């Protein structure tokens, strides 16, 4: 088992309405290579759940155990290192560093981890996403689909234990979205990667092995 989410609760203090409970006892497990789609309405807590899974926030109670590590028990430094090496993230808005080229964006996690063979691994990742000829382009000079492919390459370059994708195709037209989705699922399949996909797109969600819905703070 690669991921075990056990009964997690998360709430936020609100000035007007007191405590706002977002997650109310979410639990699920995932095996290596499994893919899971999480759907839900706006404000249902998808982003909150994703930030807990990525170790970017901590639950009020419950635990997230990823690759044998309880994220709650890691201090901030170790959590950051763990995130760099074990978690890959892909966002709807791509979130590339605007002043870094495609290659520099992809090599960023490797540099953070002070990895070896940065050049080779970056080139390999660029090749995987079909952007060898775009390596020196800044994000501003790339199309939306190309940006998302850079983001996928960046997420996969460290060979993480799990990939978290937030509205993968939300910012792309349907044709480009499909191409990007094909690329992602092909790569995930080929390297037997665990994937959690947050999406409104039912077609995209349907390509995952499991589908769940987040409603009233619980996973259904």
């Amino acid at each position: 088992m690669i991921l075990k989410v056990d009964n997690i609760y998360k709430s936020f203090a609100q000035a007007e309405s007191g405590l706002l409970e977002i997650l109310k006892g979410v639990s699920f497990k995932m095996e290596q290579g499994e893919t899971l789609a999480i759907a839900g309405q706006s404000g249902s807590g998808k982003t909150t759940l994703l930030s807990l899974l990525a170790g970017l926030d901590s639950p009020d109670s419950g635990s997230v155990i990823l690759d044998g590590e309880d994220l709650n028990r890691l201090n901030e430094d170790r959590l950051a290192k763990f995130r760099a090496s074990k978690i890959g993230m892909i966002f709807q808005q791509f979130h590339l560093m605007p002043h870094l080229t495609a290659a520099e964006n992809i090599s960023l996690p490797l540099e953070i981890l002070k990895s070896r063979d940065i050049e080779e691994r970056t080139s390999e990742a660029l090749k995987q996403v079909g952007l060898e000829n775009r390596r020196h382009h800044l994000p501003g000079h790339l199309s939306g689909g190309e940006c998302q492919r850079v983001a996928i390459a960046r997420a996969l370059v460290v060979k993480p234990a799990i990939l978290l994708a937030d509205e993968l195709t939300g910012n792309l037209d349907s044709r480009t979205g499909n191409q990007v989705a094909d690329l992602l699922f092909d790569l995930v399949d080929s390297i037997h990667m665990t994937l959690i996909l947050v999406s409104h797109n039912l077609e995209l969600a349907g390509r995952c092995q499991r589908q769940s819905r987040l409603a009233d703070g619980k996973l259904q």
Partner: protein
Amino acid sequence: MSIWLRLAVKEITNNRRFSLLFIINLAIGLMGFIALNSFNHSLHAYLEDNLKKILTADFLVSSNRPFSPEANAVLDEITGESKTESRQISFLSMAAGPAYSRLARIAAMDVNYPLYGRIMLQGDRRGGPDSIQAHLMDKPGVWMSVNTAASLGVQKGDTIQLGQKTFYVADLIQEDPESAISNFEIAPLLYIGLDQLEGTQLIRFGSHVDYTIFYGFPAGTDIQAIIQDLKKAMAGRPDLFFTVEVIDQDRVSQRVGRAVNYFTGYMGLIGLVALFLSGIGAGYLFRGYLEKNLKQIAILMSLGANRVEAYIMFFSQVILLGIIASISASVLSFLVLPVFPRIFHGLLPPDLTVQADIYSLSLALLLGALGSVMFCLPAVIRIHQLKPLHILKGYGPAKARSRRMLYLRAAAFLPAILGFWILTVDQVNAVGKGTLFLAGFLCAALVLGLAGWLLMKGSRVLSHTPRIVWKISLRNIHRNRVTSVSCFLTIALGTYLLTLGPQLKSGLEQEVNRPKGLMIPGFFLIDIQPEQVEPLRAFLEDKGHPLANVSPFISGEIKKVNGEDLAQWVDQMEEGRGPRRANREFNFSYRADLSSSERMIQGRPLSHQPYDFAAGEPAEISLAESFADRYGLGIHDVLEFDIQGIPILGKVVNIREVRWNSFQPNFFILFQLGVLEDAPKTFLASIPQMPEAEKLSLQNAVVAEFPNISMIDVSRMVENILTITDRISFSMKFMAYLSIFAGLIVIFSIARQETQSRLWEINLLKVLGAGFRDVRSIILLEFSILGFMAAFTAVILSIISSYIISFYYFDRLWSFRVDHNLFSILAVTAVCALTAFTAAGKIIRQKPLSILQAV
């Protein structure tokens, strides 16, 4: 290069506009700081290098009485065989040329003067021992500066009258030890030979004379040991040496240094305020920049970077920018430094060269690097509570709700305050003064900040108006809290500095020129012998001028206070309150009633009954307030005096406030009638104001008839004082303008950043039909309101502060300057609006479409 440093460099180069404004902001403040520090160092180094030249000896002993043969024997024995010595007698006297006369300081010297340094005569000739012997000792010659000769209307070879003796102008001086300090001359120096002094008959009983022996020793002599032996011997024989003091290089350094420190310390503090304002600007800019870049931190954190690494990246940027600003400031300071001697012309040694020194440059580099971190820390600390996914989802940064975060944010200001404190202490060279300045500055900043906050709140109330331009401007002020308060604080602090100096000077100037209820005399007369009082009165009455305020002048010692030796009494005083050393010799007078320049503030008037020596009670005395404060004396304290060998007890019955600027004869201690009448004395007096044209002929007539009486032309003296204060005031104003300039750069940066961040809003207004003029009016109005309110508040605060400072330090001399204050308010408002308009101009002229594309 580490990834973080590489990213930092990349961010700096990719945000050129921000980087440039940040560097300019910081560089302006640092430039003033480097220039002032270098100036201070050059001046102190000059004084240090020229100490011997200024003192003209390794040390000197000085007394206001002639050294007795016994005292000379003791001095000779201690100073030993290897010394060289030079003797000098100096005093104030009138010097009369054929047409003009003026007050001068006569230095009667022997051939050895000066032991160090030199007197250079016109034509680059050295005034050495042979010249002194030939022209000043063997003949009645006099050396004077070219300026002095011009003021006496004489040239080389002409004659002047000193007392009863005629001297010829043997030569004109090009450079002498005096000119190493300053070239302002209130009583210029005239050199004559010691052997020629006798015939002048200028030294009589009660004349104010300094007898000085200069000592020089071969290299390698332990001079400090000799000074210690001398002081020990002098302490053991107070009968011989009680008026003698030893002045060595440390003492001169302290004296000169103290005066220089007051001046440069004040300038340095204003320089620091400019740096502080620059820091506010830089901090503000960085805050906006960070806000824009929070997303990048979030990306990095989601990729596995931790907060420390995010801090490293931003601090690397700040430090790099700070270092670039320091280097730019250093280059700029090289351009500014040559201007300093021009600004301070007349206040500085003429041959002083000001140059940037390595200490100032290193300090600037350190300040640029660390200072920028300190100023940006309150902004960078926001990374601490950053939630990456929230930012990436576009929710914006979370607000500091937890108490811990609020404390952390408040604590982020502490390094800047601590750094500022260290710098203020370094500038004024005293912990107490530095702390007091910082406390005052923080109080002023707090008051101004509070006023800014009130304005922000008030603008919300006032914004309920149907006039759209007013409504939006006022709402902008209200909702952009940090912007409004930063702008307000920056403008207000600059204006405060600019208006405080002139406001303080105004009271002093008015009082010196036209003291309220007092008539400044035309002349002040000193050294009038008792037998000359009546003939002088008759002589002046004959000329149509009365002799006024004739006051006896008696010298004596204060031995004890309340039965305790004066030195011990002074030693017991709280450090920094009392005088630096107990000076025993004082000047006294007696009169039953107070003069028009005095006011009793405590106790009862002196008795009109003559003192009865037989009664065995102490005599009644009155103390000047400043003297009582300095020596910690009050009503009922008993002082033991030695007046020309006769012990007298005096009991304080009242404390007087004295208007020293009245130029009337005033004294620290007044005795009741009947105590000092028989003591040997001279008299001081004044002659009331007269038309300027009559002054010279009257002065010449008095000098001709009573050559030993010194006449001080009060108007001329006031003119000299005002010239010096004008110079100082100008120098201070220069620094205040620098801080205003720093403030304007801040306003420019803030206005630019604000308009940039309001692109969408401006665009929306235009899309809704607002014209270029409307958008321009909104910006102009917003910054005019901020400028006006800040300047108005600063002027009010400077009026209050100047009143408080005048009340405590300048004998309540205060007057309100309407014109200057009004002008400051209007000028600052206009400059603010213009600066903001210039900064925003390009953006508000853009077409809405291009702005939409930019978004």
